[in-house]
Structure formats: C-alpha cells, structure tokens
C-alpha cells in the first residue's frame, strides 16, 4: 500500500483547504516557528485514528477545529482525508482494491466520524486498517516533536509494542 495524498480543511491553523502530495523518498517540511508544520503531522495522526485530545496538544478534541484569528471567524468543522493506493480494504469490509480514501470529520460539539470511500465506518476499523499496514497514529515511525528519545526512556514493557509492529 502507498499513502499518496493528505488533504486538510479547517484543521487547526489550516483554515483554507490544503493538499499535501506524499511522494516517494524524502519530503522535507520547513517553515518558521509556529507556522503549522507540526499541525500537518497531527492531521495525519488524527485521520489514522488518534483518539487522545492531549496527544493533539489540546484540552478536548474540538481544539483541532480552526479557532479563528484576529481577523477571521472560527469554524465549526474540520476534515482530513488521506488517500491510499493498492491498499487492502478488507479491514473495513471493502474488497481488496486500488484506491482508498479515508476521511475523518469533526463538528464542534458533536464528535467525529470516519468514512472510507464515502461509506461511514467505525474508528476501530480505520485503526485496524493501519495496524495491518504496520502503521497508525502511535506507530514507532510517527515521531511527534520532542518525542524522538521517548522509546529509549520508556519502560521495557512499553517497548514491546515495537516487536508487534515488526511482526
């Protein structure tokens, strides 16, 4: 399976729709402090099924919805869509096929829901789909800012997860 595109709108500081093409090899993301780089990383973890508001650096999950600026009103909806190619959709009850579009949408005050190719699915199905790809919001290859040494500082029983990913 290949992840090919991440589209976000209304997510944190991304008030306007933005698309990140995920291409082969090494893609650098640069910019001044506070411009939104880590917000992109969080958008990816969020659509993969991250359920802790705290790990999104917020107090509650609604904090991922664009909160407005000095000149712009806040929004009520945030949506992130992740495109996959050659993915197996079996975890979400779809036949093994080429393209999958996984999206998550949250509305202020009423929680979030997931869709795969337009059909509503459960959070657990999306999480399973990524776990089958040795990936996911909390996989060892998704390193949030300041957390690179977390693996080294964890307790031995917490590190076990990394063996299961490799399996």
């Amino acid at each position, binding site marked *: 399976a*290949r992840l090919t595109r991440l589209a976000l709108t209304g997510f944190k500081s991304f008030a306007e729709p933005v698309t990140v093409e995920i291409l*082969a090899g*090494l893609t*650098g*993301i640069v910019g001044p402090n506070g411009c939104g*780089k880590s917000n992109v990383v969080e958008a990816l973890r969020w659509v993969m099924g991250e359920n802790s508001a705290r790990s999104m650096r917020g107090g509650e999950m609604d904090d991922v919805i664009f909160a407005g600026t000095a000149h712009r009103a806040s929004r009520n909806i945030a949506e992130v869509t992740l495109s996959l190619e050659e993915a197996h959709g079996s975890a979400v009850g779809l036949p093994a096929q080429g393209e999958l579009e996984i999206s998550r949408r949250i509305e202020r005050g009423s929680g979030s829901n997931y869709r795969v190719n337009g059909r509503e699915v459960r959070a657990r199905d999306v999480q399973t789909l990524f776990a089958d790809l040795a*990936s996911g919001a909390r996989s060892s*290859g998704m*390193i949030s800012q300041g957390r690179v040494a977390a693996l080294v*500082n964890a307790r031995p029983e917490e590190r076990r997860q990394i063996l299961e990913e490799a399996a």
Partner: protein
Amino acid sequence: GRERLSAVFAEVDRHFQTLFARMFGGGRAHLALTGSDDVLQAGLEIYAQPPGKKLATLSLLSGGEQALTALSLIFAVFRCNPAPISVLDEVDAPLDDANVDRFCTLLEDMVRETETRFLVVTHHPLTMSRMDRLYGVTMQERGISRLLSVDLGKAVEMVTG
C-alpha cells in the same frame, strides 16, 4: 505465536546492532527480552555502548546519543516490516552536524531498501539539502497556514527570517 515473535525479535536485534554501529560510527548495542521467559509477556530492554565508552544505563546517554539510539531501533523495525509512511518531527534538533550527516545517509539507505515515504520536519539546513523535495508552510496571513513547494534557497530563507 511464540515462534513468530522470537524470530522477529532476533531479526530486529540483528538489524539494530548493525544500524547502531553505523549511526555512531562504531560501538555496540543489542536488545534483550526481560521480565519473563515467555516472549509474549516479556519487555524489551535496550543495551547501548557508544564507541570507547562503557556500557551505560540508557538514561546516562546524552540527548544526541539517545536520539540516535532510538532512530536506530525504529529503522531496525522498518527493515523487518516497513511501514508505508514515517513522519519525523525535528528529530535532528539534538544532533550535531556530523550526526545529522550520518542520520541523513541512513535515511537515504532506508528509502533505497524499503518503499517507506518519509515526511521530515526540520530547521536544519543540512537536512534540508538532503531531501528529495521541500514543502514550505507559511503564514503570510497571520494565523492561517498554507503550503507551497519551495527550493533549497527559498527554504533556508524561510527559517532565517
């Protein structure tokens, strides 16, 4: 089952040993299962010995040494079962230039060996220069993030303000 996990442990350990020695330009490291004889219950312990030093408890390693040890382990897992994507948010922040160079070289090797696509957030000009492409995140309108493709010159300019 147990056989599978024991085999995976041995493979991750083998890769970890090689990658650690490359990341540090020497030294030795290995993994061990601890706390239980049953591989399904045991914890994973990391032993790391930078070149010329005694085997130290992990917490005594420096900030940069801990980052390199962790990255060696993560890449060892990728060699066994590559994820389609990896995101590294400023993992080069604690590294000196010599280690940034070694880290980038290892990243390039990973890309050749696996299909993993990497998103690397960085402020480091050296790391930027080793990327296949660069996306700049800007806030031309204060508080509103946008994304645009940039070349190296423009990228360095963005962080030098």
